[in-house]
């Protein structure tokens, strides 16, 4: 099994996930579950066959790591959908999985990219996958927030209901972010000797984390004041962008140990 056969597994899996997403949106849960689960099985078959042919878990290169993103995002999306029945959840997770599938199909040369020793850790994939998932959830929350900002003619009830979607996204996102950040801390202890060294990336991770905490606390203090809360959500997402990639353009970046070029 090689990357040449990837497309024959990835495309059917993606199609099945998209059918599941459509069924989830149309509130046909049985179809959503069946289609998504079969999609996951097809995708995991490729990972398994790849694993057997490589004689090691496919976790070494960036391309292989992206394989797991797609896989886990589909699984986590399904779990979150099963737990809360958000109709948008499967669309969202399928889209994320699809992005990573496309990157793997379009940029095959990265499959050979080597991983420096510090990144070769069992913490690597979960840390990055969980963060990617939380970034995605916050992205969706921001879309909802901007929608609420622009749409002036919503009824008060509609407005509140949409706001709850934003709350849920941020709340789940923050849970993932907390877990991702703490896994990063435990990994840092194993790799660099300390769990929190105030490296610029860590500092920005803390800033973003606090910013989303402000959102959740503000929502509880003033549930009726939507506008300031929406602004907080948008500002928090801007801070997240600096943490994610904007940090490379800051004067503090050159002291960071998190300077892997992980395109």
């Amino acid at each position, binding site marked *: 099994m090689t990357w040449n056969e990837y497309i024959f597994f990835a495309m059917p899996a993606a199609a099945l996930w998209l059918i599941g997403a459509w069924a989830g949106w149309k509130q046909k849960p049985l179809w959503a579950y069946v289609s998504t689960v079969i999609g996951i099985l097809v995708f995991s078959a490729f990972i398994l066959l790849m694993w057997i042919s490589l004689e090691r878990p496919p976790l070494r290169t960036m391309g292989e790591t992206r394989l797991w993103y797609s896989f886990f995002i589909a699984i986590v999306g399904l779990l979150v959908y099963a737990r809360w029945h958000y109709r948008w959840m499967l669309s969202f997770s399928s889209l994320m999985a699809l992005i990573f599938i496309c990157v793997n199909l379009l940029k095959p040369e990265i499959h050979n990219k080597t991983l420096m020793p*510090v990144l070769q850790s069992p913490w690597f994939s979960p840390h990055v996958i969980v963060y990617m998932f939380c970034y995605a959830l916050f992205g969706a929350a921001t879309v909802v927030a901007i929608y609420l900002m622009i749409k002036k003619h919503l009824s008060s009830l509609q407005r509140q209901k949409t706001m709850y979607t934003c709350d849920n996204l941020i709340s789940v996102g923050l849970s993932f972010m907390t877990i991702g950040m703490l896994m990063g801390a435990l990994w840092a202890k194993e790799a660099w000797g300390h769990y929190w060294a105030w490296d610029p990336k860590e500092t920005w991770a803390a800033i973003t984390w606090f910013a989303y905490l402000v959102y959740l606390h503000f929502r*509880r203090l003033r549930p009726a004041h939507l506008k300031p809360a929406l602004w907080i959500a948008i500002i928090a997402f801007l801070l997240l962008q600096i943490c994610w990639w904007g940090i490379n353009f800051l004067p*503090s970046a050159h002291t960071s140990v998190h300077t892997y070029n992980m395109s």
Partner: protein
Amino acid sequence: MWTKPWKLREGFVIGLSLAGVGLVLQASVGPIDWNWLAHPINIITLVVFCLLSVIVYFFRQQVYLFRYLSTYSAAIPSLCCTIAVTLIMGCIPQTQNESRLWGIDRMLCFWPFVLTYIMLTLILAQVVIKRLVRFHLSDIPFMLNHAGLLIAMVCATLGSADMQRVRMTILDAYPEWRAVDEDNGIHDLPFSIRLKKFTIEEYPPQLVVTDNETGRPMTDEFIVIDSNSSVGHLNNLDFMVDQYLEYASPRLTETDVDYHSWKLSGAVTAVRVKTSLDGIEGWVSSGSYLFPAQTLKLNGEVSLTMLPREPKSYVSEVEITTRSGKDTLATIEVNKPVTVDGWKIYQLDYDQSKGRWSEVSVLELVRDPWLIFVYIGIGMMVVGALTMMMTNNRINRHLQPLKREAP
């Protein structure tokens, strides 16, 4: 303003005043020296902090400020102030040396930064005590998140002065007892370490096409040489590896350089490459501390070059002997530290100039007696985050009755 109940505004004024006090302290007593917090002062500080928090809680009915501390109206401005000071830290390059920017380039020793975090911790402590006093099972996620963060923050801060971090360079000639800290102070350790074997595993060699003038790769593309007959396509040219020597040394011939198998310190990796250009073939090597790199000139503008080999892993096999004479054999590599007598030993570095032929290994040794408590806090937060995911819909239920105070 200042009419009860206090709102966000009052919280921001308190936060700003605290930063002002911090600036005065910074100007008068200078930056904070964390070393004074070393054992037993940190234990005393912990006891004082706990007592103070309990006292503040008990006088909440008498003193309005104390009552205010456990409200959302106090927590949000405190979080915002924390973001503000952390934001400055995230933008300004930090230094370990003397500050040149009035202290903001050494944020961890900057009074306004530290006071802002202390305020956040005080608020966190009040909120935790308040919930603890009238604890209900449904408070478990809340307690895990808030108490976990409180424990992790307090123990990490107080424990930082007790943390020892030293480096040790080991050789196979003799065991080493001493290590140096970042100020070049020498420390005797309760055990010795001797290097038995140091090995570097490298990724397969990679060939790129480079500019003859700058020496830089022309594109991001490269060929990985993973077997004797690797083929590849770069810069509209086909390449085929004719011969691959993992360990080799150059030998001058009458007209050219030839490589032959040779496995001693300083050996290079060399490949003989045929190209689709007529008559252009020859050796390419990455070079070592002993021999220069060899490139294959393709035309007047570009050459075929082997990139420096990237380490896949580096491993020290060591013998650790404690003062009582107990010998242990251990393997230390990046991401896989070894724990001995409360010290965690990390693979840090090697002689980079010699690469895979390095004869020394650099280890980092870290002792952090407070680590276990920080981990308890972190563990509580992880479980708290998981329970928060599971009980997510509660947010909606909380929001509907438009509750205001009392987190």
